[in-house]
C-alpha cells in the first residue's frame, strides 16, 4: 500500500454534516431503487413461470385431445381453387372450438386429431 493511501486512511479530516447527510440520502436512494427492481424481477418471473406452465398444459391438452374449456361452436368453410380460379362453391363443416391460456384449437364432429 502506498504511503499516500495510508495517509488518506489515517487522516482525521472530517466532512460537513450536510455532505454526510446528502451521501446517506444518495446511498439510500440507490439501495431503494435496486431493491425495488429486484422485487419486481421476482414478481414478473413468478408470473411468467405460472403463465408458461399454463401454456404448456394447454399445449399438452391440445395434443392429447383432452380439452378443458369449450369456447363455442361454428363452422369451417373450405373453398377450392384450381389454377387461381374458384372451382366449386364451398364445403362447410361444423366444428367446435376449445381453448386455454389464449390458445384456441378446433375439432370436428368426432373430435379425432391427426
Amino acid at each position, binding site marked *: 500500500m502506498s504511503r499516500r493511501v495510508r495517509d488518506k486512511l489515517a487522516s482525521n479530516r472530517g466532512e460537513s454534516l450536510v455532505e454526510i447527510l446528502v451521501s446517506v440520502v444518495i446511498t439510500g436512494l440507490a439501495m431503494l431503487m435496486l431493491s425495488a427492481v429486484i422485487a419486481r424481477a421476482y414478481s414478473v418471473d413468478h408470473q411468467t413461470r405460472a403463465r408458461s406452465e399454463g401454456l404448456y398444459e394447454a399445449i399438452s391438452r391440445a395434443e392429447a385431445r383432452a380439452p378443458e374449456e369449450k369456447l363455442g361452436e361454428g363452422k369451417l368453410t373450405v373453398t377450392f381453387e384450381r389454377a387461381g380460379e374458384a372451382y366449386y362453391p364451398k364445403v362447410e363443416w361444423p366444428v367446435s372450438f376449445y381453448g386455454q391460456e389464449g390458445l384456441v384449437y378446433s*375439432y370436428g364432429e368426432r373430435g379425432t386429431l391427426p
Partner: protein
Amino acid sequence: MSLVQKKLADRSGASMVIALLLFLVCSVVSAMILVSIHQNSMRMPQMVEEQQQYQAVSSALCVLKEKVTADDMALSLAGSTTDINSFKYVLEQMAQEVKASGSAQPYTLRFSVDGEGAQALTPVRGELHMAGNYDLTIKVCNTQPEGANALALVCKAQVSGDTITYSEVRVQGAVMGGDGA
C-alpha cells in the same frame, strides 16, 4: 501532479463521491435487471402466437382427417355423389380425372372459420393432390407467415373395383408447392 494523485493527497472527505459511485453501480445493475425482465416477458406472447399458428394448421388437418376417414367417404369411380358442395364430390371428380388421364390437377384449399371463439384461429391454406394410384396428399400451412407450420395428411388408397377408401392415414411434415409431402 495528476488528478488521481491530487485526490489521494486531498484531506477532505470522500463520502459524497463514494455515494455517487454506489448510485451509479446500482443504476447500471437495475437497468440490466429491467432489460432482462422485459426480454423474458416479451418471449411469452410470441410463444403463444407461434403455438396458435401451429394449432390453426393442426385443427384444419384434424377436420380433414376426420372427413377423409369417415365411414361414408368411400369414393366411387362412377361418380355417385351429386352434391357439388361436398368434399366427397371434389375427390370423386379428381379420382375420375386420374382414371381417365392418369393424373389430376391439384386444388388450392382456402380455410376460414366462423363462430364464437374462432377469432384466434389464423388463416390457413392447403393443397390437395391425388396421385396416379389414387393416394391422397393434403398439405396445410399458415398463410401468415406464408408456408409456416406446413403439415401433410398422407392417405393411402385402397381400391376395390370402382370403390376407393382411405383407411391408412398419417400426418407428416411437408413442403408446400411439390406433389409429395
